[in-house]
């Protein structure tokens, strides 16, 4: 009976997950803030405390993500791309294409039959297809990011943005508001613009069904539906999509334990 720990320190949120015998026992998600090292430790401690465990009870820890290299108590590190692949393969073995919509980046990852990366691509230093676009939209409309998804589903006619750029879309959204467009229609338009960018990545990496969406963006039902429409197929979404990479990291820790 060995516990393993997976940590994913993202630019917005840090996630930790504890596995035992391949089963998820606990997890925690906290804002990363400016200190990634501390954020990883706090997230890990929160996941451990839920099970009344300490760091000493963990047989192996793998860290990933933007701040993964800063987690000094980790036994190993991996890229969040590999971790997303492993996590999705564990949850949905039939999935061959993963779209990870994070706060700073979106990525398309193609998996092989064993859940390893066959190909991947990231967006080109552009917020247009990332969660940052949603944060900008929430600020303009004066709502919470978590409210975007449901509100967008009430749209009557999605606004068509003339740009896929988050910076330009901000001023365009303000113009549309002044013209009387509803927040729901604006959000639906933003989802369509984001989905178009994300699906372009998928096409570049090679669309292979089944597909899944992970990362914080996958919590937005409006975005997930827009991606599905753009792809012409339904997509899998994990119950808690933010912890997929942490899950993959924990699975890697477990795999190493098994083979060592």
């Amino acid at each position: 009976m060995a516990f393993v720990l997976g940590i994913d320190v993202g630019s917005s949120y840090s996630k930790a997950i504890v596995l035992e015998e391949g089963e998820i026992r606990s997890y925690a998600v906290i804002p990363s803030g400016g200190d990634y090292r501390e954020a990883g430790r706090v997230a890990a401690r929160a996941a451990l405390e839920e099970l009344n465990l300490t760091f000493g009870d963990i047989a192996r820890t793998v860290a990933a993500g933007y701040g993964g290299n800063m987690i000094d108590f980790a036994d190993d590190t991996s890229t969040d791309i590999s971790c997303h692949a492993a996590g999705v393969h564990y949850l949905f073995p039939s999935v061959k294409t993963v779209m990870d919509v994070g706060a700073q980046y979106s990525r398309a990852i193609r998996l092989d039959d064993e859940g390893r990366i066959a190909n991947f691509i990231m967006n080109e230093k552009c917020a247009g297809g990332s969660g940052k676009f949603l944060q900008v939209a929430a600020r303009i409309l004066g709502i919470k990011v978590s409210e975007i998804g449901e509100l967008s589903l009430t749209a009557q006619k999605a606004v068509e943005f003339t740009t896929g750029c988050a910076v330009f879309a901000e001023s365009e959204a303000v113009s549309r508001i002044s013209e009387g467009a509803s927040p729901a229609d604006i959000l639906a338009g933003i989802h369509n613009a984001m989905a178009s960018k994300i699906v372009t990545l998928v096409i570049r990496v090679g669309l292979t069904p089944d597909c899944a969406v992970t990362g914080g963006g996958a919590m937005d039902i409006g975005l997930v539906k827009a991606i599905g429409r753009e792809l012409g197929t339904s997509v899998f979404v994990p119950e808690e999509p933010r912890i997929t990479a942490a899950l993959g990291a924990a699975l890697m820790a477990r795999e190493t334990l098994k083979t060592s």
Partner: protein
Amino acid sequence: MAEEKKGRAVATSTAAKIPKFVRGNLSATLKAKEEGKKVAAAFIADGQDEIMRAMDIVPAWGESFSGVCAAKRDAEKYLQKAESDNFSRSLCTYATCNIGFDMMREELGGATPEGAPWGGMGRPDMMLGNGQLLCDPRFKWPQATQHYQQDVPVFVTNMYYPPWDPNADHHEQEAIYVKYATEELRETVKFCEKITGKKMDWDRLAATVELSDKTWDLFIDTYELRKHIPTPMDTGDAMNTMVPLTFNLGTQEAYDFYVDLNAELRQKIADGVGVANPERYRIIWAAGLPSWFALGDFQYFNGKGVVFPVEVTYRGCEKIERLDLPKTNDPLEHIAWRWVRYWTHWYDAAKKRPGSTPKVERIIEYIEDYKCDGAVFHSAFSCRSWHAGIMQQAATLKKVYKDIPILIMEGDIVDISSYNEADTHNRIDAFIETLAAYKKRQG
């Protein structure tokens, strides 16, 4: 203010001699006036090298100087200067960096701007442009520069070669392209004679061309030593060791450099010394100019056991015997044949593989010869001619050859604002994991 540049080690001690070459080329442009020589703003891989060398014309390599500015992380002031006159950053940043520098020098009445990397470059007496198929900005770069140096005459050639068409017989087309290129070179000589007031010494030109041929052969013989496992030299070094071939062709110094490099690589092979220990994966640098401000990324690869034994970039030559050049006593016609066949000699191979192209066939040849596991392409946004074809090349490679791991890196050649080190290293790490998965699948 210049950002601090990370130190970069080289794998070969011969590569450490390269800064002397580059500095020497730059200082030659500054000393030319006192030595009574003419300076020509020149562009690489355009067939004009031997003409300049045989006429004692000092080439001022704008592309090299911009690369130096980028490597020193000191290009921003020149890019901003060009931007102030409405030159967009999406234009070639070799060109805009150089134009910005030229603008500043003109404002100083021809004096070198203070703080110019490695002493800067002297004002040209002429511009020898070349808008060949390799690079579209070269049609307009000399003209744009001439806005600021209106007294400097410009001569632009084309050096076309037969376009790739799998249904056409390029062997039938070659002669007319050679004839056209030869005439362009002859006009170049006339132009240079007019500016320098000197006549071409044709015997000297023939000897210079012969030396270039020898250098081409030696370069390839030397680089093919990198097929050895572990490879004794990486693309990170090759981005330096290309300098004598690219900027000093037709000089004894260039030839001698490759004699030294050849000896060093042979010694490394004999001693079993490789770039990485252990060597886990071998990768081809399949296309694209590097980010000169981030050459340290090659060491990031090497530190993880990933080596580049071969690259397409700056391998601007081939063994002369493989080109099967027709005999001619005219050195200009020889240069033209060498240029045309350099491109077309991959056409026959490409025709044998349906759906392939010469550029992809070249990559496949190198992958096979150098036993590569994957490919890295660098998509430099301002290098439009190359950037535009990279995705197509990568897709064709996967389609007609095999689904090998490919990493498309994104950045620029000079503009550091395009670069994010953490993001780049994250992509490299994920690519290495992809390579590991690929090798497992291959068994």
